[in-house]
């Protein structure tokens, strides 16, 4: 098996696995940049995947066909944004310990979605499979380019490219627009931002809700491109992996995207490793733990120092020093 053939298996899988992580990690960037730690990304992804499974089936019933999964992603984004309000309410208005509130979000999302699935499908723990998923395709013209074509433009979903483009847009928003400056300022020094007339609570609510929307898209994309149905184990750890990607990417949208792609590659290698001669002899455990070990190393400064936004995790109380 030549190297090109190996890459043709590994890279498209890597991009596919990375896509939900990119969306969710971008959500994490919004929340943390505004100063709210969001451990609840996992739960928000669960809500996204759950809503996507239900809505795709409903839209299919309306005869919307291939448009169903795309519309379902949008509904999932809105639903997760609304769900993330709970985290915002607890951690911003009620000054809850943000990590605890995030843990509660994860508990609640899993319990609620499985509870509702059982309610809707007569006690069955999973939804039916959706009929119209967003399938892998070859991108017209581009996939004919030699070398690059088969690697990056064949057997891919459009959602992957949307994710990558959005990562750049998010970078632009956070670093080049007044809104982004305000968002970062409430995450770094809320008291100073408040003095300058920025509504700290409002900015943080927006940050958390954007994280909800993006994590919802991440979960929904996972559902319509990878799993095709929803159960309690559909999302198991992708949210935490996205959190790791955000940190490994140093709270920067482009960095988070790069980290997500890298984690996708590690996962893809652990799945496809058996087909690849060189990797067959390496136990897949090394590839499975690589993202987590690397994230720890990144935090310790071995792979470039990563620092969180200064006020991340601290509730802002007006007038308190």
């Amino acid at each position: 098996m030549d190297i090109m053939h190996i890459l043709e298996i590994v890279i498209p899988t890597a991009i596919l696995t990375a896509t939900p992580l990119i969306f969710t990690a971008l959500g994490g960037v919004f929340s943390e940049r505004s100063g709210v730690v969001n451990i609840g990304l996992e739960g928000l992804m669960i809500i996204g995947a759950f809503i996507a499974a239900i809505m795709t089936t409903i839209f299919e019933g309306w005869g919307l066909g291939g448009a169903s999964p795309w519309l379902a992603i949008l509904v999932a984004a809105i639903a997760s944004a609304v769900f993330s309000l709970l985290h915002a309410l607890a951690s911003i208005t009620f000054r809850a310990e943000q990590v605890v509130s995030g843990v509660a979000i994860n508990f609640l999302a899993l319990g609620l979605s499985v509870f509702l699935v059982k309610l809707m499908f007569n006690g069955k723990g999973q939804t039916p499979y959706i009929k119209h998923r967003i399938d892998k395709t070859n991108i017209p013209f581009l996939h004919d380019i030699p070398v690059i074509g088969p690697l990056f433009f064949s057997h891919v979903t459009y959602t992957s490219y949307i994710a990558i483009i959005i990562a750049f847009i998010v970078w632009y928003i956070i670093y080049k627009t007044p809104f982004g400056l305000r968002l970062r300022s409430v995450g770094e020094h809320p008291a100073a931002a408040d003095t300058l007339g920025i509504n700290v609570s409002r900015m943080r609510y927006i940050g958390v809700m954007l994280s909800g929307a993006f994590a919802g898209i991440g979960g929904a994309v996972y559902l319509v491109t990878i799993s095709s149905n929803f159960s309690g184990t559909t999302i198991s750890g992708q949210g935490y992996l996205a959190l790791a990607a955000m940190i490994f990417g140093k709270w920067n949208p482009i960095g988070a995207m790069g980290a997500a792609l890298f984690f996708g590659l590690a996962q893809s290698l652990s799945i496809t490793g058996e087909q690849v001669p060189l990797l067959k002899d390496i136990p897949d455990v090394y590839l499975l733990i690589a993202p987590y070990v690397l994230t720890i190393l990144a935090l310790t400064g071995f792979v470039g120092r990563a620092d969180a936004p200064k006020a991340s995790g601290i509730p802002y109380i007006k007038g308190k020093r």
Partner: protein
Amino acid sequence: MKRIFNNNRLFSFLIPVISVILGLLAGAIIMLITGYNPLLAYQSIIHSIFFEPYYSGETIRAMIPLVLSGLAVAFAFRTGLFNIGVEGQLLVGWFTAVAVGIGFGDLPKAVLLPLAIIAAALAGAIWGFVPGFLKARFKVHEVITTIMMNYIALHVTNYLIRTYLYTQGERTPSVPESASLSSKFLMDLTQGSRLHWGFIVALIAAVIMWFILWKTTKGYELRSVGFNPNASKYAGMNVNRNVILSMAISGAFAGVAGAMEGLGTYQYMTINSTFIGIGFDGIAVALLGLNTSIGVIFGAALFAGLKIGSISMQSIAGVPTDLVQIIIALIIFFVASSYLIRWLLVRLKKGGK
């Protein structure tokens, strides 16, 4: 209004109680909306765990790892650390206990059983030590490292089982009788539940935590670092060493929780495709128990009762067991948002006057 704020003890006691009531109320509302009978549901939970020996036994059995993981979270909280890594520490403890039990199966029970539990505690302690060390040496936030360590534990234990201790059914072989905590006596007493001697270990652990934190100089230091690291440093305490120690002890409690599952409830370890959740439940238990030994026992009793009782709730009232997960999540929300409850109480008091 002043009186409430002055009476902080009563206040901090009221918060978990009110949170539980609000959580159960919210659960009832969800049941009403979705067309179930909340009274029948709660009644079936209470009836099964208090009046049916099998479910009573299972409730105490389920409490054992919850108490220990709650103690683990609470211990770290006391030093101002948030150990989300209990889940991973529990898994390595579980694996170590089973591995030691099988590996040294020839030793007499009086040696092997304590050895397996201590080995599990050590494994958990090492898993907790790493985030503690990284926090002390590199100022890395322990929340992130413990989450990462959870996944590393999950994949590593799965790999070790698959490579060294694999048997049919995606699991390890069972531990020999000499490493087992199970008891025919307790089983018969509770009509065949999986209740085992681990409950004594859990009680001892609760006493140990109380003793370390409140009766030793080191415990005073640990709590002092939790209250104010800067003041502690000024007073001549080694903050970094206390952080590492606290995480290691916390991990040891979690490791023992794993040993209870490995030597008591299951007698083996399965390959887990995802987390088992006891470590995360420990966070809820510790919060509800206000990070005290006795509170953790009460918190664990509540959650174990809800979880085991939910089986009858499903069969009698038809409510999916997942409702309990929702109630527990809401209770955590309410405890975490204690500011809300304080505010509500003050409002109520004002209105009353």
